[in-house]
Structures are given as C-alpha cells and as structure tokens.
C-alpha cells in the first residue's frame, strides 16, 4: 500500500499542466471569470482542443480513442483540470452514453456514433426522467411502437414527455429510455433509443430553475419516427444499458478534484472577508472549524474514491458502492456552497443576474453568484438518483438488507 507518485506520474503531471496552460482558451477564461453564460460553441471549444490532442475520452477503450492512462494518471488529469478551473468536458456523450455504446452497441453503431462524441462534433442529451418517473425511473411511460415507414423500413414511433433534460437546448442528439412492451414488468419492457433532436415532433421547452438559470428542459416527443437501427442492444432490454450508465454517472459524480479546488477558493474568500471583529473570517474559530471539518470529510471521500479507482484498475467495474461517492460527493459540494454563502455575509443577498452591466459591481467579486450557486447545488442530491435512492441501493445491493 503506498500513495507515492512515480517519476513517470510526476512527468505526466507536468505535461498535462503545461498543456492546459498553453491551450486553454483565454476567451473561455474571461467568460468564466465574468460569470457570463457559456454558448454551445464555448462548451465545445475545449472539448475539441482535447480531442485534437487525443485526450477527450481518457477512459474509453484505446481503439476508440481512449488514452490508456492508469487510474493514477486519470486522477492526476482530473486534479489538473480542476486546478486550472477548466470547464468540464460535457459528460452526456463521453462519460454516460459512450460506455453504453462500446459495451452494448454493434460494431456499426460504434463506428457511427463514437467518433462524433469523442471529437466534440455532436452534442448529446439524456432523456430518462419523466414527470411521473423520477426516482421510480422504471415506471416511465414514453411509448415506442414498431411501424413500417412509407420507405418500407422499420421505425419506432415515439410519443411521450421527458423532463430535467440538462442542456437539451443545445443537443443534436439524445439517448432515450422508451417503453416498447406495455405488458411486460416495468424494467422488462424498456428499450434504449438514440434520437436525432432535429427529427419532426421533437420539442424542447426551457425549465427555469430557482436561481434563475436555464440548464434543464422538458422534451416533448410527438409521433417522432426513429429508425430501428438507432436502438442500442436488444429490444426490451434497455434497462440493462440504463443501469450500466447510471453506475458510470455515479462514479463520476464524486467531483473530488473540483471540490478540492472549491475548498481552495473558499479559503481564499475567507482570508479576504472580514469577521465581525478585526481579522479575516478564516481566523474566526467558528468558521475555521467548519472549513476544517469539510476538509476532513473531503479527504475521507478522496481516499474512498482512490480505493474505488484501485479496484477498477484491478479489473472491477464500478459497483453499487459507487453510491457512496454520489452521496458524499454531493453533500460536500452542497456544504461548500453553504459556507461560501455564509462567508459572503450581507453580500449574499444581491441578485446580479440580468442586472445591466452599467450598474457596476455590487459587493466584493468573491460574493458574486454565491447564493445562486447555493440554490442551484441543491439539485445534486436530487439528480442522478436522489440520495435517498442511493441509500436504498447500498442497503439492498451492498448490505443485502
């Protein structure tokens, strides 16, 4: 048991650090600093730079563009990206859909879809949840019926509504869970379909969240014709794909590197903000104690994640214990935003989104957007299977209760 980074690891770290420093777009940096909304092209620009370097999909099989990095290298990679405050490569294609395609798809499907995901040419969104199917995902009702088109080819005719589709407003394609057998047991009648979002009958409607942002959408599917060859894996066995995908979603959700960076920023804020009496907030025993507790909590999560990574490198895929990473990871992300809001004091109150630029800054820079971030981050214990559902998974699948 050791934690030492080898000389090769150190060299790798130096290499990726230098690459990020030299290649991360300054225009993106400026927008992030000013908390400007990012456009579709902004999101994809960094992805495409990484794709050119061959680093956009590190975890994939090598033949499709994976880097073949060791778990340690992947860990270093995520740390360096967080350290440099890069935007994240969008997870929907690279981390969520692609493992389903390279695990369950045909050779033809792999060749058709994986390059576009890897290279950041196609934006994917997720069509899982429905108004009546959240935690109980298997109760989904969106219906897909087999029909023969005028061209004599086989299609699914898809009807229904999906919701909470993150950044669906930019999506070129979506991966959807649909019901293909209404009479089977809930999990047994579901298929996994890839749908071109420009198909007639697809409507995306914004959902505004409580902090005022537009991240999520309703997606309406009204007689959408989907070629049968866009189905991944067997008909009525889409739940197998969905479960595998959720495991990947969960293991990536811990966000340790980003939270470590968040803690650094919190320390910085608390060094700048003043306590009730003279001196920085970080010298205030109450606040200091809370930051210390959070750091310890994050350290525990980091080592739990490292143990999971070590397990993966010895050939184990992510298992149900990845629910631990989801629960603790999101709790820590939420705690970070709580403390940032506390640190901002009175200046947590101004609502600056949509305020005309000419009014100038209100309050210190580090207080900008902290309340919005706190409100928005409440979603993390809800999405990807609520933390209550994750506890059910651990109870059943890990503890055998």
């Amino acid at each position, binding site marked *: 048991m050791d934690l030492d980074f080898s000389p090769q690891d150190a060299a790798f770290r130096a290499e990726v650090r230098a690459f990020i420093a030299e290649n991360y777009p300054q225009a993106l940096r400026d927008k992030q600093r000013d908390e400007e909304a990012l456009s579709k092209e902004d999101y994809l620009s960094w992805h495409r730079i990484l794709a050119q370097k061959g680093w956009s999909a590190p975890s994939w099989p090598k033949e499709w563009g994976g880097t073949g990095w060791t778990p340690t290298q992947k860990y270093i990679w995520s740390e360096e990206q967080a350290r440099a405050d890069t935007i994240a490569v969008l997870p929907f294609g690279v981390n969520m859909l692609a493992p389903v395609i390279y695990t369950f798809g045909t050779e033809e499907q792999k060749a058709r879809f994986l390059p576009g995901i890897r290279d950041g040419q196609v934006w994917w969104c997720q069509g899982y*949840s429905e108004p009546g199917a*959240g935690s109980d995902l298997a109760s989904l009702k969106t219906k897909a019926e087999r029909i023969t088109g005028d061209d004599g080819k086989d299609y699914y005719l898809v009807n229904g509504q999906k919701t909470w589709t993150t950044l669906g407003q930019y999506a070129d394609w979506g991966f959807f869970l649909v019901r293909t057998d209404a009479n089977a047991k809930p999990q047994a009648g579901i298929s996994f379909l890839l749908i071109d979002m420009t198909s007639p009958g697809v409507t995306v409607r914004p959902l505004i969240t409580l902090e005022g942002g537009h991240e999520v959408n309703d997606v309406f599917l009204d007689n959408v014709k989907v070629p049968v060859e866009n189905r991944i894996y067997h008909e009525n066995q889409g739940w197998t794909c969905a479960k595998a995908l959720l495991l990947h979603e969960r293991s990536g959700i811990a966000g340790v590197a980003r939270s470590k960076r968040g803690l650094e920023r919190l320390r910085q804020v608390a060094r700048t903000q003043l*306590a009730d009496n003279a001196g920085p907030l970080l010298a205030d025993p109450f606040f200091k104690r809370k930051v210390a507790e959070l750091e310890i909590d994050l350290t525990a999560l980091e080592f739990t994640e490292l143990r999971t990574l070590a397990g993966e490198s010895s050939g184990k895929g992510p298992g149900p214990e990845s629910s631990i990473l989801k629960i603790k990871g999101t709790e820590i992300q939420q705690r970070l935003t709580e403390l940032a809001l506390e640190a901002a004091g009175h200046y*947590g109150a101004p609502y600056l989104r949509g305020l005309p630029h000419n009014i100038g800054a209100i309050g210190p820079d580090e207080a900008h957007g902290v*309340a919005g971030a706190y409100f928005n981050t409440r979603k993390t214990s809800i999405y990807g299977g609520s933390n209550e559902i994750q506890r059910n998974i651990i109870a059943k699948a890990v503890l055998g209760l």
Partner: protein
Amino acid sequence: MDFSFTDEQSMLRDTVASYLADHYDFDTRRTAVKSASGWRPEVWKAFAEELGILGAAFPEELGGLGGGAIDNMVVMEEFGKALVVEPYLGTVVIGGGFLKHANPAGAAELISGVIDGSVTFAFAYAEPQGRYNLANLVTTARKDGAGWVLNGHKAVVIGAPWASHLIVTARTGGAQRDAGGVSVFLVDRNAGGVVTRDYPTVDGRRASEVFFENVSLPASALIGEEGAALPLVEQVVDEAIAATCAEACGVLRKLHEGTLEYTKQRKQFGQPIAAFQVLQHRMVDMFIQVEQAVSMTYMAHIKLSEPAAERAKALSAAKVQIGRACRFVGQNAIQLHGGMGMTDEMAIGHYFKRATMIEGEFGSVDHHLHRYETLSLGA
C-alpha cells in the same frame, strides 16, 4: 401563564390573512417583484387605509391602536406565509422602534406618517467591512455648526429604493469598533449627496448600496444620544430579530405544509412518496424544527421587555434556532419536492430562498451563538 392571543390580536391576524389571500397570491406577487419598482405601493396604501394595520403596534396617544411587539409578531408571521415584500419591518418595526424609544424631534409627525402610509423607512446599518457587528462603523457624522455632515457607504440596505427616509448609524466619535461614539441619524432619502445603487435581492426584494457624500443634516436629524446610541441600536435590532423570527415562522409553516401536501400526492413505486418511512421521519424532524422555532419566537417576543443583557441573550438564542430551522426545513422541502422543488414556477423554491436569506439577517447562527455564549457563559 398564557400563550393565547387577545381578541384584537386574533382579529388583526384574520384581517391580514384574508387581505393577503385575496391580493397576494403567488403569481401576483411574482409579477410585482419582477416589475420595475419591485413592490406595490397600492398594497401599502391598503395596509394603511383599508386594513389600518400600520398603526397596530403604536400607542393610542400617537394615533395607533395601542398594541406592541405581539401585534408585530402576528403581522410578520402572516407576511411570511405570503412572502410579502413591502417594508413593514423597516418602517413599522425598525423605524417605529427608533421613534418610540428615542422620541426625537418630530417623532409624532413621522409616526402619524407611518400610520397613514406616507412615511417609509429603510435601515442603513450594515457596512462592507462590518459583517454583523453593529458597532463596526466607518461611516462618519462630523459636527458642522449646529448640524452634521455625513460621509460613508452602507451595504445592502433592504427597502431603500422604496423608502422616504433612511435611518443611518454613523460614528460621531471613537474608533472603528468602539461601543462608544455610535450615533443614529434620520436622513431624507432624496437629500443632496445621498447616492444609491439599487438592485433586486435573490429573495425578491429590493436593496441599495447607499453612499453619503457630504450630506448636510440639521441638528434635529439626531435620533437618540450623540455618541451613545449603541444600546438603542441593539434594542431596535433585537426587536427586528424578533419580528424576523415571526416572519420565518410563517415561511417555515408554508415550507412544511407544502412538503406534506406534495409528498401525499406525488406517487412513485406505486404509492405516495409520503408512505416511505424515511421521508415520514424527515417530515417529522422538519415539524419539530418548526414547532421549536415557533416556541423560540414567542419566547423572544416575551423577553423583549427584559433588561438589555437578558433580552439580548434571549434574542440571540431565538435567532440561532430560527437560523437552523430555516436551513434544515428549507433544504429538506426542496429535497422532498425533487426536481419540482428546483423550479422557479413552484412557490416552494421562493419560500426556500426567503428562508435562506433570513438565516443571515441581523446576524448568522455563528454570530448569535457567539453573542449568546458571551452573555450566558462569559467572554
């Protein structure tokens, strides 16, 4: 021992509740807070004329109805239930508090203006460097002949865009954090040299950064004793804390009720999610927090008339409980609403945002724990 309300107080509650039910539904409020001015002066006028509630907490000899802090509590709790943004706290509780306790020149006319709805106050006390320490002031008032010249920057002055007058804490002596040297002034919002930058707040109200640039004040602008007003400020802020706790009780009740209602009708796995024991226990814990918050709010109001040290200890204790309840109940209301709780279109998120802001108002949990510790256990 008696925790019941008088007939007058019960009538006051009914009057306010029924007016708000008719005129302050969620959609109407939402439209109003997004409008250019962010509030409805006609609602304020109705409070004064139609309901007559702005005088409830003032003595009869000043034109009021002879009530007091408990009347403020009743009004504020109902306001919390409807997320009322109009400036009752700043005008009646805080402005009225300063005028009643200090009785400065012109107090009677100002109070009659408050009661008829023509005078509104905003309390400019916070400063960018001061966090929650009421004495941490760099705003100064310098003697100038018989009057004063005011200079400084006040942070996040809630309701300032709507106020006819500002009540301003400033240093007339002493060093930045000294208890001595604090004075309070009444400033016309439109006086020369008063510069404001107005903005909305995350919970749907309006506030300003207020800059005083050589503002000339007459001698009569002074409220309370020159250089010795910190005890007065603490008293009024304690009264404001009590009223804010009452508002929080209204907000918390709605968060809890809304969650019960939603989980009873939301079905997953073939049953209402309220049937799951883990959620039942969560809602029980929320309920306990709400009841404890209500108890502490009553306690806080009862102790407002105690000697300063006893009063301060009680109010800090109440604010700690309310702050914790706001966080626990607010966060869990969102969690139990699932994705729906995250949407702008549902009221629950708006109650959560108000609850979150109340956590920090007039001092965070940490601030009041420290104040309580010092008063109760010694420094």
